[in-house]
Structure formats: C-alpha cells, structure tokens
C-alpha cells in the first residue's frame, strides 16, 4: 500500500511564484464552500429562474425547494441588489423575470381570424418594396433557417436581416423558458414580417405545461392536453396571420427514438389540423418522409438526388445537418413562392 505520513505540526508559511502564499487544504475547502454559498445568495434570483425553467422532475423540485427560500433570504438581506444593478447596467433587467402569459391576439371586429377565407392573391415584392422574412422556433429551426437564408442570398427583394431566432429548449408548452406568445406578438407588431417560418414542438413532447394558472391539463396526449396545446398553436398562428403574416410551419421530423417519433406525430397532427383551418394563411410543411430510410424508419444518412450518401441528422438523432436544412429550405421557399412573388423583379 502506498501511504505517506504528513506532519501535523503547524506549517511554515510557504510561497510560490510571485510571492503568493500557499494555504492549507482546509482553507481551500472553506473558501470554496463559503464563496459558493455567498455566490448562491448574490445570484439567487437568476438561480431561481434557472430552477423554474428546468424540465419537470425531481431535480427541478429540489432546485425550486432550495432556490425559492434562497431568493427570499437574498432579498431580505438585500444581497440581490448587486445582481440587479449589474443587470440594469447591462440593459438586461428582465433576465430574471418569468413571463408565462399565453395571450391570444385580440381579433379585430371586422376581420374574424379563425374563419377560413379565400387564398389571397400572390403579392409581388421588389428591391424597393421588400418582403420581410422572419424564421423562429426552437433549436431545430436554426439549420433549416440558415439554409433558407443561404438560398435567398443576393435576392434584394427580401429583407432577411436578423431573420433567424432559434431558442434552445423552448417551445409552446413552457412560456417560462421563453415566452413565444409574447415574443411573436412583439415581432409582428414591431418588425412586421410578411413571411414567417416557424418550427415548434421539439421540446413539447411531455406533459408539463406552464402558463395554465393552476389548471390541470393532464398527461401528454390526453384530451385536455391536446385541447390546451391546440389553443396555443392556434394562438401563435392567429398572432401571425392577424397581423398580415403568411406562415409556413415546419413539422417535426422522424427521430431516432421511436417513442419520441410517436409523440412528434401527435404534435404534428395538431399543427396540421390547425393549419388546415387557416388555409391560404398558414402552410404546414410535413418533413417526416424527408428523412426516412429505405425501411421507412429513422436514418441518419440518406442518399441525395445524386446518389451521394449524406449525413442528414445530427448525432443526437433529432437535430438537422446542413443537407437536411437545404432540403427543408427548398420546400419552405416553394411555399413562400406560392404566396409571394419575390423573384420576378430580376427579369424586369
């Protein structure tokens, strides 16, 4: 056995390079523990928010059980002030707030938003009158969104500045993580995009919903859950369309996990139904068969039209690789082209 006896005598002071003092292991433990404890109090509002937006489960329960009282104690001791001051100086005072409001748009009395109307005429855009594009959703939307931007590069009839907003771990179930209902409304009111591409649901395949004010929506897939999720999908669709936007909603793809694929199917069916009710204003893009292998199941590598084997899906079995993004982008642009003419200006 390799053992080593160390002296218990009071140590001599010892220094290292630059004259810094070496300390005992006990000091290391005390400084680490005390430093973390004080940091917990100083950062309590942020930690409580981080706990709140965690996925459902015992970890979240424990985290909330710890950070809730900690936030109260931090406030009582005024230890939350430095963080608030720092956040204010950074212009991010809202960072620690949790907004769970699921607010449906107020329909204008003269334009009922849920009644299907005839498809509008194909509207023409030019470099002088640009079509503003906005692509948003959870992390799944980023790669297809980038592909869309690459494909429309150089098209001066499109305004695609700051076009992509992909929020990791967000969705329509958890407005506490990121409130898309508020954000979509704000974007539609301030930036006024006419072409909107959305993709949600990748993080919504579970039964834990926030923003329901004490109501029980049941487990994932239950009738009450479906009703509430349908309401949320409809809210987002109406928020876009009632402000003049044409919406292409990208459906969820087949995933490596067969159970997850089934859950995605349910979400897709809800979105598809709601899109069908808004024909001419919302277009649902089914991506399921883009990424199925020869056996109809999940495939990470798929042959492209030239017969070349290409990696379509990321190693996590859910996210897209560039080739998949390009495939989706082609279809998205086809849908947008059905509704808007942003290419004929070149032939003037």
């Amino acid at each position, binding site marked *: 056995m390799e053992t080593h006896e160390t002296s218990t005598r009071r140590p001599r002071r010892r220094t290292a390079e630059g004259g810094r003092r070496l300390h005992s292991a006990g000091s290391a433990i005390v*400084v680490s523990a005390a*430093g973390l404890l004080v940091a917990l109090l100083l950062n309590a509002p942020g930690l409580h928010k981080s706990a709140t937006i965690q996925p459902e489960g015992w970890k979240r329960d424990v985290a909330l059980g710890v950070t809730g009282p900690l936030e109260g104690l931090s406030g009582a001791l005024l230890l939350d002030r430095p963080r608030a001051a720092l956040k204010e100086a950074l212009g991010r005072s809202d960072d620690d707030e949790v907004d769970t409001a699921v607010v449906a748009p107020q329909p204008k009395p003269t334009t009922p938003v849920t009644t299907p109307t005839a498809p509008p005429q194909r509207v023409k855009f030019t470099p002088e009158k640009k079509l503003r594009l906005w692509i948003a959703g959870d992390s799944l939307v980023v790669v297809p969104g980038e592909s869309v931007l690459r494909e429309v590069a150089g098209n001066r009839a499109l305004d695609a500045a700051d076009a992509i907003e992909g929020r990791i771990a967000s969705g329509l179930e958890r407005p506490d993580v990121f409130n898309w209902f508020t954000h979509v409304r704000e974007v539609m009111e301030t930036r006024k995009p006419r072409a909107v591409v959305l993709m949600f649901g990748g993080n919504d395949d579970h039964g834990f919903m926030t923003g329901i004010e004490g109501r029980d929506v049941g487990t994932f897939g239950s009738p009450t859950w479906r009703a509430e999720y349908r309401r949320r999908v409809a809210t987002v669709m109406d928020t876009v369309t009632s402000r003049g936007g044409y919406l292409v909603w990208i459906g969820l793809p087949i995933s490596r996990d067969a159970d997850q694929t089934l859950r995605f199917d349910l979400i897709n069916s809800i979105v598809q139904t709601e899109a069908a009710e808004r024909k001419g204003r919302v277009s649902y893009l089914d991506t399921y068969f883009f990424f199925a292998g020869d056996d109809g199941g999940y495939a990470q590598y798929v042959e492209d039209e030239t017969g070349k084997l290409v990696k379509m899906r990321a190693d996590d079995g859910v996210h897209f690789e560039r080739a998949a993004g390009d495939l989706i982008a082609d279809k998205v642009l086809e849908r947008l082209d059905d509704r808007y003419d942003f290419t004929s200006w070149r032939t003037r």
Partner: protein
Amino acid sequence: MLFPTATFAIFFMIVLPLSWALMRSGESWRAFIIAASFVFYAGWDWRFCFLLAFSIAWNQAFALAIHGRSSKHARKQLLVVALVGNLGLLGYFKYYDFFVTSTNNLFALAGIDVPLEARSILLPVGISFFTFMAISYVVDVYRGDFAPVGLGTFAAYLSFFPHLVAGPIVRPGELIPQLQAPRDPRYVDTSRAFFLIGTGLFMKVVIANHLAANIVDEVFGAPNQHSSLEVLVGIYAYSVQIYADFFGYTNIAIGIALLLGFTFPQNFDAPYSATSITDFWRRWHMTLSRWLRDYLYIPLGGNRGGTLFTYRNLMLTMLIGGLWHGAGWTFVVWGGIHGSALVAERWWRGRPGFVERPWTRGRRAWHRFVTFQVVCFAWIFFRSDSFADAWDLIERLFSAWGEPSPLVTWGVVAAIAVGIGSQYLPRHLPLAIMARFSRLPIPAQAVVLAFALLVVQAMGPEGVAPFIYFQF
C-alpha cells in the same frame, strides 16, 4: 456534467473535502477518486463508462505484458497490438461513419455501389483525449521511460475527472508520481486555483458564449446574408471564441486539479501573440503539440532524414493532428494549412545564408499580425461544415463591403478586444493579483470569489453551451 453548472459545483463540493480526508490512505483515496471520476463521466452517458473501463484494462494489461518481456521483438509486437486496440477503438467510434461516407461517395463517382452502411455511432465524450493519454502510457513503458504502475494508480491517472473529457493531455511522468504520493494538505496553491477557475469561467461563459451567440453562429451559419465587415469580424470573433472556450475549460480543469492538490501542465501561452506558426504551436494546446511531437513526429523520423523527409513528417503530423480534431475533410485542410505554413517557415529559415535578424518592435508586430491572419484563415475551415460553406465565407469576405453591419456591435468588439488583449497582459500582472489575493483573510477570499461568480453569472447568457473541444 459541465464545469460551469450547479450540478458540477455540488459534485465538486462533495469530492473536495472527501478527497482530502482520504488523501493519507493511498488505496482508499485512489478507489474514491476513480469512483468519483466514473460518476462524473457517467453524467454524459453511463454506457461510456464501460469504454473507459475497457481502455484502462486493455492498456494496463499490455503495459504489464510489454514490461515483462525482454525480447525487443516481442515487446514491439505487443506494442503494435496495444496501439491497434487503442486506435481501433478511436477509429470505430470517431471515424467509422466518416470512412463509410467517404468511401461510398468516392466509389459512387465511378458508379460503384459499396455495400457499407453508416451506423450512426455516438461519439463518447473525451475519447480522443483519454486514448492519447493511454497511448503515451503504453509507449512510455515500451520505451523504458516508465515502469507500469498498479492498476488503481493507472485507473486514477486515465480517469481523473479534471482532465478526462477535454484535457490537458497529461503525460504519465507528470501525473502518476503525484498520484502515487499523497499531496501535502498544508500547502495548496489556492490563489492560483481560484484565479484560474475565475478567469476560466469568465472566458468561457462571458466571452466565448457572447461571441458565439451574437456574431459567430450567424455569420458562419449564413455568410451570404452578412456584409464583408461582419464576416471579417465574425472570423476574428471565432478565433477568440475558440480560444476563450478552450483556454477557459483548461483553466478550470487546472484550477480544480490544484484544489485537489495536483499540478497539470500549462496548455496555453498567449497563442495569438505568436510571431510564427512554429511559435503558435508552442503556445496553442501545448499538451497536444508535445504529444504529436513525441509520439508521432519523432517516431515518423522527425528531422533526422533530410529536408524533404522533415517536410513530409511535419505535414503528416499536422494532417493527422487535424483529423484528430474531427472526422471531416475540413479538419484535414485546417491541419494542412498549418502544416504548409510550418514547412514554409522551415524552408525559409533553412535557406543558405539565412540569418535571423534581431527583433525590433515593428518587426515583431508585423510577424504577429501575419501569423494571426494565417491562423484565422485556417479557422475558417475548422469552423465551417463543408468546403462549400468555407468558400462562401471567403467569397463573401471580399464581395460585400459597404453593406450595413448590425452584428458588429460594441459588445462584440469589446469581447474580441478582451480576448486578444489578454494575450498581451504583462506576465507579472496575474502573479501580482494572485499574490494579493493569497494575502487576504480567508473570509475576504470567499467574498472575492463570490463576487467573481456573480459577475460571471450575471454577464453570461442563460444556459450553458457545451465546450467546443468536447466534440473532439
């Protein structure tokens, strides 16, 4: 289990006191630290633990077998089998699908259908790092530089959690002697440890994440949508992001090891102040550079076989080093650019009559500037998903000057300035800060540490992005 998370903080606050409590008993301590390291590793995927355990068993068995043979031929044969096992494991998990797609597509050009199918293999985190450390152990034993140690010590060496997933690549001679003799609990370099952890967190959470979220991902994702200025700044931003990300990780790893009483080698030495690519590789990911030099370049023949032979070895080393970073041809090109630059520098200095001129301030600044541009150019291929993407970016760099550049904000410029400026800090400054910190009373040290964590947490974005080097 990522370092900048509450989960890791809890894990570490359990491990730290227990580690010191058990330190005097070598066997118990080793069993504890191995268990803790496996728990840490299982945080990603518990199935990977079997792979790590296999690597430990495989390499220890071959190290003992090699050490027990006197015949050079037998030792060499055993070494070859050991290396095939290590590289086979790495090759299967990291390069199998890359090999299949490359082969399929190559033969498809000739209209030949190859019956090989990609397997969608999940890459175990850290496999490149612990495989290289395992190889260095077996090779050192083969060379007679190192006698095999007990299984517990070797397992602690290979699995020690501070270096497990992204290095630094610590050599047996550097860590194993420390693992054999308990650390002295009276003398711990706490001020350096806290300084490294604090600066590491700041560089990762604030600088790297800010640049990734505010310019790099957007520019590399869709370069055609951005102005030339945004693309240029995006490339510089990526060079700072990858440095801040990896330097930050390494600092935290070294700091954590220091708190446990262990010293790791330095991994960075202001690489963006390098005056040549040769100098850059003495400063960037230094433990990988040393590994490639000692276990690849020199065994290939190094500079012992004439000029062209040396060039070949340099190029091969950098190409393989590029491929080590990722299973993609863009990484090979990245290695090729560095290899070409190293060859060019060696050729330049090897010209008849070449005399090294003394450094002047202006000449040094010029060399630093040119070196940084070459490094940044190579990063384009490192970051891009494909050659087409890299080409789009390069093309855009020259074709969209004068267009609006909303991504070039003061925040982005400031983060780049901090990243580059940190390379030029006087060396005595961190030492003075650490010395001042070390002389504070213990409660004051805790308060300083807490406020440092406040700044990092408040300035960083929500959530924690994984470290870039975890994917390698």
